[in-house]
Structures are given as C-alpha cells and as structure tokens.
C-alpha cells in the first residue's frame, strides 16, 4: 500500500467525477452515435480510474482491469455497436420515455441520494474509498435510470454497461478487493454475449424494431 497523499486522493476524485459526468451526458444525448461516443469516453475514464488505483494501491492486477476497460469497453464494444447499428439499420435517434429535463432532475436527485447514503455509513473506511464509493453508486443509479428512460434496446444495453462501469469503479476503489479482474472479465463475457445476441438472433429482423415497447406485444398468454 503506497502512501496515500493528498495529491493521489484528489486525482482519484477527479477521475471518478469524470466517470460520473459522462454518466450524466449519457442521459441527455439524443442521437445513438453520440450515446456510443459518450459511453466510450466513460469507459476511457474508467480505465484511467482503474490504472490510477493500481498505482496508488500498488496493486498491479488492477492494470489488467484498466486494460480490459480500455480495449474492450472503450474501443471494441462501441465499435461493434456502431457497426451493428449501421448493419441492421437501426433508428439513429433515441426515443425517451421521460423528457430530458425530468430525467436530468431525477439524475441529480439520485446523486444526492447516494452521497447522503454512502458518506455517513462509510465513516470508518479510508477516505479514498469513501468518495469513490459515493461516485460509483451515483454512476450505477444513473445507469439504471438510463435503462428505465430509454426505450431502444441498444441504449438499454449501453445503460447496462454504464451501470457496470459504476460497479467496476466501486470494486477497484475498495482497497485490496480480490477477484476484481475476474469480475470484470465475467462482465465482459456478459456484454459480448449481448452483442452476439443482437447480431445472431437478428433481433431487428424478428421484431422489426429494437424498441422494447414493441417487444411487449407478446407478453404472456392472452386467451
């Protein structure tokens, strides 16, 4: 464990806040490609956060997590989604279930909620962990919000991955937590499966659209 200086603490804080900011940006993008670019940016920030934690905590295995975030999530996944959107001819504009103003307000409320929840209960934890955890929980809740307010299946997947970015941010910030690499690999497999799912099952061909509202037509057994 390296010495925890004020500087390293502030850098970790800054990077965490960048991840959160990207989470907010995801909420108001109206075009699908902009959503993908913003997600790539968030993954990039996550990679930086993981690398910084690896350096500060003197935990080299976190560099692997950083590399996964950088290569897989910031480059391969957005690229693959970009290609899928073009290949399958998916609508490029994003439909929202809630107006952007309300979504942003809900987002702010969620961030306030996570700070109010996390800071008091982590009084004993190291300061580095404390703030990062509050940021991570905000990112998770924003990802959840995005999944709820966006109707398009691609944006839902992006929302899930944003949520997952928050989870990884929490895991790398928890001092000395084992299995972080395994967990990020497990998530990557999950995400890769979704992409394959969209492509091979040709969700668009089967359902005409990726809008999950239209998927609901079947919903159980109407007699």
């Amino acid at each position: 464990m390296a010495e925890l200086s004020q500087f390293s603490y502030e850098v970790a804080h800054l990077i965490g806040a960048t991840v959160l900011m990207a989470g907010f940006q995801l909420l108001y993008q109206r075009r699908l490609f902009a959503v993908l670019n913003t997600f790539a940016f968030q993954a990039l920030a996550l990679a930086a956060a993981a690398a910084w934690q690896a350096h500060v905590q003197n935990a080299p295995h976190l560099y692997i997590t950083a590399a996964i975030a950088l290569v897989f999530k910031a480059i391969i996944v957005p690229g693959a989604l970009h290609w899928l959107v073009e290949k399958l001819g998916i609508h490029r504009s994003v439909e929202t279930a809630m107006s952007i103003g309300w979504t942003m307000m809900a987002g702010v409320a969620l961030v306030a909620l996570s700070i109010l929840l996390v800071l008091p209960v982590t009084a004993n934890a190291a300061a580095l962990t404390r703030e990062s955890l509050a940021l991570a929980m905000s990112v998770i809740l924003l990802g959840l919000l995005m999944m709820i307010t966006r109707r398009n299946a691609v944006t839902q997947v992006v929302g899930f991955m944003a949520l997952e970015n928050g989870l990884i941010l929490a895991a790398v910030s928890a001092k000395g937590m084992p299995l972080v690499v395994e967990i990020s690999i497990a998530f990557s497999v999950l995400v890769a499966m979704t992409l394959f799912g969209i492509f091979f099952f040709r969700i668009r061909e089967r359902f005409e659209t990726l809008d999950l509202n239209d998927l609901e037509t079947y919903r159980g057994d109407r007699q």
Partner: protein
Amino acid sequence: MMSVIATLPGFENPLLWILGVPLGSAGFLVVLKSWRTATWVNVGASAVTFLSSLALLEHRPAATRLLFIDDFNVYLVVLTSFVGLTTAVFSAAYIARESEAQRLSDLHLRFYHSMYQAFLFTMLLALTANNTGVMWVAVEAATLTTVLMVSLYRTREAIEAAWKYFILCSVGIGLALFGTTLVYLAAQPVMGDGADAMAWTLLVKRAHDFQPDLLNLAFVFVLVGYGTKVGLAPLHSWLPDAHAEGPTPISAVLSGLLLNVALYALLRFKMLMSANPHTLTPGPLMIMMGLSSLFLAAFMLYRRGDIKRLFAYSSIEHMGVITFAFGMGGALANFAGLMHMTMHSLTKSAIFFAVGIISQNAGTKRIADIRGLTSSHPVLGWGFVLAVLAIAGLPPMGVFMSEFLVLSSTFARAPLLAIPLALGLLLAFGALVSRLQMMAFGEPPPQQHGHGEASAVSNILALTPLWVHMLLVLVAGLYLPRELVAWFQAVARVLG
C-alpha cells in the same frame, strides 16, 4: 487455490468430482457429434456428480479459501445433483422426441447438452464457493448459460423471453455485486485486505464487529439483486416467460434448482446480518416481498391459459412462501423454509416432467386444449394429478407438511401475518385445482395434433423421474427419518 490443487493427486476431495465432472463433460459435449450419445453422456455425468455428492454426507472435506461444505449447503448440493440427474434422464426422452419432430437441429442439441452440464457446474460452484466474489461469478455464469438455453427454439417468443430474462437478471446481479462489494468494505477494516474478507467461513465469525450501517446498505442491494433471480415480486417478470419458452427440462431445473441457488445466496448474506446485533432485522423486508409474491402469483394463477406459465407462477408463489418463512426466522420457521425448499424443488420439477410429456403429446401448451389426461394416459395423468395436488398443498404430501409448519409457526408468533399467508395459499390452491380438473378429467379430445404417441421405452424413461420424485415427496409427508429432522434443525439454528 493452491491448497485445492494440492489435494488433486489423491482425488480424495469429493468436491473436485462434483465440480470437475460437470465442467469436464460440458467441454466434452461441445465436441461430441452424436446427440444420442450425448444424452447418455449427460445422464452418466449427472449420475457421477450425484454419487460424488453422496460421498459428502460421509466425509466432509475441510474448508479452503475457495470451497467449503457446511450443514447448510451440503443438503442443497445433494438436492441439486439429484434433480440434475433425474432431469437428465427425463431430458433424454424429451430430446429424442423433439429431435424426431425436428424441432431442434443437431447443432442446437450439442449446444444444449453442453450448456446443461455447464449450468449444473455453475450452480454447484455457487453453492460450494467459500468466497462472496466467486459465488457472484458463478451466479452470473448460471444466468448466461440459462439465457442461452431459454432461447434455444429461436422462435420470436423464445428470443423475447431470453432478452427480457437477460436484461432483468443482468441488472439484478449487477446490484448484487454492488452489495457484495459493500460487504467486503464492511469486513475490510476488521479483517484486513484480501481474500479473507470475502470468505464465508471467516466472515460469519467476525460479523459482529462489522459496521452495521454498511451491512444494512449492502443487504438492500443484495436483496434486490439476488431477489430478482429468486423471482420475488415486483422483480419477477422474467420468470414466467423464461419458464414457458425454453425446453421443458430447462424449466424443471430453473424452477427446481436455480431459484433455490439464488435464495441460498440471499440467505448467506442474511446470516451475516443476523450475526451482527446492531443491524436492521432483515425479516420484515423479506416477509413483505414474500407475501407480495404469494399474492401476486395466487391471483395471476387464475388467468393463465398456458400450462407452463401456470406452473411458473406457482413457482413464484412458493418462493414467496419460502422467503416469508426465512423472513420470520427462528428455529421452527427456518426448518419449515428449508423443508419447503426441498419439497418444492422435487414437486415442481416432477410437474414440469409431466408437463413436458403432456405438451408433446397434445402438441400445444394451451390449457384449454388439454383434457381427459387420466383416461387417455393413465400413468402420466395420475402422476400429474398427484404432483399438482401436492404442489397445491393437499395432505398427506410433503408440501402440505412444510406449508403447515410455516403457517403454524407464524400463528404462534404473529397471528396477524398468518391470515394473509393462509388466504394466499387458499387462493393458489383454488386456482390450481380448478385448472387441474379441466386438464385431468372429462373426455379426451378426439384428435391429438402432437408428435404422436411416444414409444414404450421413451415413456418409461420420461415417467420414472416423475414417479421417483412423487414417491419421495409422499414419503416425506408421511415420515421423515430422525437423522434428517435433526439435520434440518441444526441448519435452522445456524440460519438465525
């Protein structure tokens, strides 16, 4: 990890067989071309796994940092590998008929068998993992393998069901991971960095020193996260679709086993909460979710037109009852909950075996098109009647006994809670019996549009698991061996 590998040469550790055989056969089945051989490799591998799990009853290996066996998980390991075996036998008959009807290609079948073993592996790993993180990875992998199997038929409905299952359960396990991280953070100041602060065996001993607020927050995330996988209302909406659209053997293991595994994960975290005197009592939250699942499912049962969905909702109902029982806590209610987990698992998988054959015979899953089962197929029909009456909670079956225990222990301690519980159980009973009457009695429809009649061998293969399960449930209702009762009681005390 190293200590596990150190025991490798002697193969003295039954756990290595229990985990190694399904994992190895999952790999082998991918490359095996003939699906007929694959069905038997599947049965054989499951049999070896079951026999090795029996060895655990005699000899319990010492806990390592990776794996452990205690009173609680040993019974779930045996139950899981047993139902895994009987379902594999049923699956052999089911798959043969599906293949004859050309509903599944050879490639799909190869994939199906491999995924079946991989699924067993992930469940057994989740049950035996002595590490909160490994358990999480195992549950996540179990989700992946089942998503792939639910979408096996590639119909619009199947893909939609798989997608819904995938999205909801991914979010669920995501939240469970955050809860897991929070538990690590609660443990880390007391136990130091590293794997110790994630090992169940060590966590429980030190849990009274953890910071209670952090544990509370963690438990909420774990409850919502793993609760999604248990199928608790209001997070249940993936469950009926996933059960209805996948191949029937998968519905049987989803209902009978996977829900139990998710509940097991939840209960492990509850044990930490109980070990710390300053935390919230998790009981009321679980009681509330349990009751709402029970009621939601009981009402939904009346409106079902699809036979597999009907019993999927019945699973939600029973998981609600079990969660309610563990929420009540205390030795008697925990005992009842453990017993109900076992009975539900055996009975519900038996029902899905019957449903599989019924819908293959009739060529439909619509309840309205299924009539007169007891006169057209007596052995199947009466087995089905027995199983449905058992799950509805009629004496003298084991399910009745465990439901009665839940109810009477609730009456003794919180009579007001017992009233809604009894009401929910009666509602569900009424729904199931009225549906059963339609399907089992009356004139069979003149023409069946199904796959035609099954051969005698296939019938014996498919019906044996059904009757074996029902026999066990019947015996458990009439007489429980003294050792088994003592064992359940020991676990019930551990659960707090």
